């Protein structure tokens, strides 16, 4: 028997030898023509016919292909840069977005500003998505991301237009430029992935110091607070930054989970922050506070009797108390076993459900449960019965709040109401309504228990005159938590044997002839560095461009040593490119006053020793200090200088490192695109589909570039 699919399916059709097969099934005329054309006799005696999608090729021809040029990329990233530049730096302003509905959004965060724009250009959307993803992980640095990306692109564009022809021939100058740019971006990323962390460890880390989360001694506490203050200052302005910094420190101190490493509590806060915060509009900012326990953002569905008991028992349900009678698609089979009595009808069923509900409530009452937290909406009969028996019911509680409740109380939500065990019952200190702003919520608090997290939970209430501002403050808090998580994330040890390759000892002597004796010292201490050199968690630097100046200098030196060893002028040194691009960031910070840019630069450069042998001695000193465990401000060689720079604020080295890597990865993916395919969808007559394609060089000039799907 022949099996056949429709005429457009690319399926093999196996036919019997007879040609009467065609008459048995109804095909379209075209299909049958193809069938007759393509019928062949195979070895086994059966005939195979292959239906191809005969209109596919035609469909491809109808799609429009567009080339993307490097200058378009530069232009659109420059446009995004000009938007973000307004809010950048300590002098930056805020952007107010309004909707026709009257909703207002106030922000200084680059991520929110960029996501609020109407962008239909596919590359612009790609950049915004990269910024979004980076900001979701690190919490900060979205504006810096766009600025660094723009300056890198401009430099790559400049060097690509000046570059002599590549070895492979291309169709036009634009494709040559694009290929050159792509190549440069790939080399930059390779460089960053292999050498950058070692360079940072060598050049930047000695000028910073570590702040620990565990210590609550005076100095580290102050540095930690300065670190937070810098963040809140850039995000919220200098009016409320002190207040929010104190609130944040209070929140962190309440949530210190003592058993584990300190980043565990920050991670817990990060995961549960939407459930832990309540936004209240219409109050002054100063009335933001912490309240003990958890706030469930729903009101009681049944009137809550005022009981002054010591403890309240609660159960969490994730299903329905009373089975739903009939929903669309349900089939109700009536009857008791095999006997189909005349009495079985829907009335019996509904009375049975009523009785089961009464039994459930009675069971709960026997356990002493007085509060029910339900994830779904309950039936009116359940509500009525709960009111009658005096049980408090909260319905439609969100998933995040249920999961937080479960973690804090130690119980798991039950789905089957028939099987209630004593382990499923949570003990609460109180469960009462609370009025926050215009809404009434449920406020619960938990007993101290050894089994669950050993912490006194508290919730954050954020007040502000308007909704736009409460959103802004809540986002700032969440981003601060994410930033803390990134800054205190332990980094992997860097392998600096690659760095050793670029500083070979014989080249070193050719550059500095008077330091013959030091090369062995350098070699030996670099071996030691290999074990201990790492970007420690919690390493901070004075803000205001210090990181950029130091890394610029380090990359510059690296570039010098590379050019001495490699000695080819045709190859553009990528370290120089990155170094110059990095310098654009402090330029933007000090754009209102060019003199202060030079002042800042000289101040930071004064920290760096000029001679190479002092560099190696510095390295030994740093290694010694690292062995102690933590750097304290006074024992650090640059301690005095660091103290004077503290008034600028502090920023985390780890966050900056992540930022540079993320920018370079975004850059490579941006420059890999060279074609845009326009497709037609139902909603939009013209929409865009991006292809990541690598253009293959061809000898034949007429052939189009290969597009890989």
């Amino acid at each position, binding site marked *: 028997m022949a099996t056949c699919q429709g005429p457009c399916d690319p399926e093999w059709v196996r036919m019997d030898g007879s040609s009467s097969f065609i008459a048995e099934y109804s095909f379209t005329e075209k299909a049958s023509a193809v069938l007759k054309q393509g019928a062949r006799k195979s070895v086994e005696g059966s005939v195979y016919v292959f239906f191809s999608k005969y209109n596919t090729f035609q469909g491809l021809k109808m799609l429009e292909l567009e080339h993307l*040029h490097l200058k378009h990329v530069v*232009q659109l990233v420059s*446009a995004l*840069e*000009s938007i973000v530049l307004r809010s950048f730096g300590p002098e930056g302003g805020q952007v107010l977005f309004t909707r026709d509905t009257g909703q207002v959004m106030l922000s200084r965060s680059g991520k929110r500003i960029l996501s609020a724009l*109407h*962008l239909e250009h596919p590359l612009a959307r790609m950049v915004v998505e990269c910024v979004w993803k980076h900001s979701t992980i690190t919490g900060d640095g979205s504006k810096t991301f766009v600025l660094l990306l723009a300056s890198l692109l401009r430099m790559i564009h400049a060097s690509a237009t000046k570059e002599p022809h590549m070895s492979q021939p291309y169709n036009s100058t634009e494709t040559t430029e694009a290929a050159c740019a792509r190549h440069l971006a790939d080399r930059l990323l390779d460089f960053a992935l292999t050498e950058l962390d070692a360079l940072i460890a060598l050049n930047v880390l000695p000028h910073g110091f570590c702040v620990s989360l565990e210590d609550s001694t005076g100095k580290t506490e102050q540095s930690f607070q300065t670190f937070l203050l810098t963040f809140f200052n850039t995000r919220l302005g200098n009016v409320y930054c002190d207040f929010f910094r104190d609130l944040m420190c209070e929140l962190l101190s309440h949530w210190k989970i003592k058993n584990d490493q300190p980043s565990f509590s920050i991670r817990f806060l990060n995961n549960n922050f939407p459930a832990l915060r309540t936004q209240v509009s219409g109050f002054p900012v100063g009335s933001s506070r912490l309240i003990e326990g958890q706030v469930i953002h729903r009101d009681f569905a049944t009137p809550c009797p005022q009981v002054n008991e010591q403890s309240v028992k609660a159960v969490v349900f994730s299903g329905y108390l009373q089975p739903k009678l009939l929903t669309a698609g349900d089939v109700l089979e009536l009857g008791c076993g095999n006997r189909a009595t005349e009495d079985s009808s829907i009335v019996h069923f509904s009375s049975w459900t009523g009785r089961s509900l009464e039994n459930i409530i009675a069971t709960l009452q026997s356990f002493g449960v007085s509060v029910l937290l339900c994830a779904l909406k309950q039936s009116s009969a359940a509500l009525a019965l709960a009111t009658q028996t005096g049980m408090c019911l909260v319905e439609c509680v969100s998933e995040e709040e249920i999961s937080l409740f479960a973690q804090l109380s130690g119980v798991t939500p039950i789905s089957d109401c028939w099987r209630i065990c004593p382990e499923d019952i949570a003990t609460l200190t109180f469960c009462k309504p609370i009025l926050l702003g215009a809404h009434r919520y449920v406020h619960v608090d938990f007993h101290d228990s050894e089994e669950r997290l050993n912490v006194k939970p508290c919730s954050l209430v954020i007040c502000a005159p308007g909704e736009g501002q409460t959103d802004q403050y809540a986002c700032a808090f969440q981003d601060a938590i994410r930033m803390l998580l990134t800054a205190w994330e332990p980094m992997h040890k860097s392998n600096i044997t690659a760095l050793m390759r670029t500083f070979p000892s014989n080249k070193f002597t050719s550059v500095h002839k008077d330091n013959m004796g030091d090369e062995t010292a350098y070699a030996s201490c670099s071996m030691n560095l290999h074990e201990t050199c790492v970007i420690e968690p919690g390493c901070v630097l004075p803000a205001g461009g210090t990181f950029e100046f130091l890394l610029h200098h380090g990359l510059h030196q690296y570039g010098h040593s590379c050019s001495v060893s490699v000695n080819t002028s045709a190859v553009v040194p990528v370290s120089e490119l990155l170094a110059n691009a990095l310098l654009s960031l402090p330029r933007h910070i000090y754009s209102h006053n060019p003199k202060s840019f030079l002042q800042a630069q000289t101040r930071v450069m004064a920290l760096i020793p000029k001679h190479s042998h002092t560099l190696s001695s510095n390295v030994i000193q740093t290694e010694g200090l690292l062995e102690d465990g933590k750097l304290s401000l006074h024992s650090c060689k640059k301690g005095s200088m660091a103290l004077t720079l503290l008034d600028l604020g502090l920023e985390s080295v780890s966050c900056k490192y992540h930022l540079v890597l993320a920018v370079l990865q975004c850059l490579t993916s941006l420059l890999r695109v060279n074609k845009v395919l326009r497709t037609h969808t139902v909603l939009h007559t013209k929409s865009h589909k991006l292809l990541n394609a690598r253009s293959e060089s061809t000898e034949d000039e007429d052939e189009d570039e290969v597009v890989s799907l």
Partner: protein
Amino acid sequence: MDLNGDAEMKVIQAQRERQDKISKLMGDYLLKGYRMLGDSCEVCDTILLQDRQQTNYCVSCQELDSDIDKDNPALNPQAALSQVRERQLAAQSQAVTQVCAGQSSSSQASVPVTQPRPEHCEGAASGGRSFLPPPVVISALSPASTTSLVPIRSLVCPPSSTLQRDLEEAKEVVLTKLRGATVQLQSSASLETSIQLCSLISSCANSLRSLRELSQ
């Protein structure tokens, strides 16, 4: 080589400044709610923006290139005026050098130079901008200027003897009229005619006075 390098640097700098301006304008429009499209302009290859009314807008074609128009005399009256003044200045300096070479001073005052007024240029400029030129204005102005010139000429140029003769003739006529009016005034009986005759006499006296002033 240095010159080439400088010129190249200037070109590169000008291009960079133009690109910076384009980016800034695009950023402004995006913040105002314009939409960045995936297309680029056919003329200048800049990325297109679209406003709320779904009209496409190219930042460089419609805003930046118009900066050059302000120097174009065909499109800007002020530019035209400054161009004419420059030419006049060049012509006058030439005329001054010629005069100093030893020409008579009377030729200087022969034709007073008319300054082209901005209204003239406005008409020409509006013609350049493809509006309907108002030729009536220009033609109305030019006869006025010529008529203003004519009496000056007539006052300066003719000799004094013919003038005196004309004045004497006028005086005679006026006196005759005066005498006739006086005679009629003596014989008139009605009040109305007397008043009219008296006013005739006073106007004759006024004309005589002005004629006398002219002759002096």
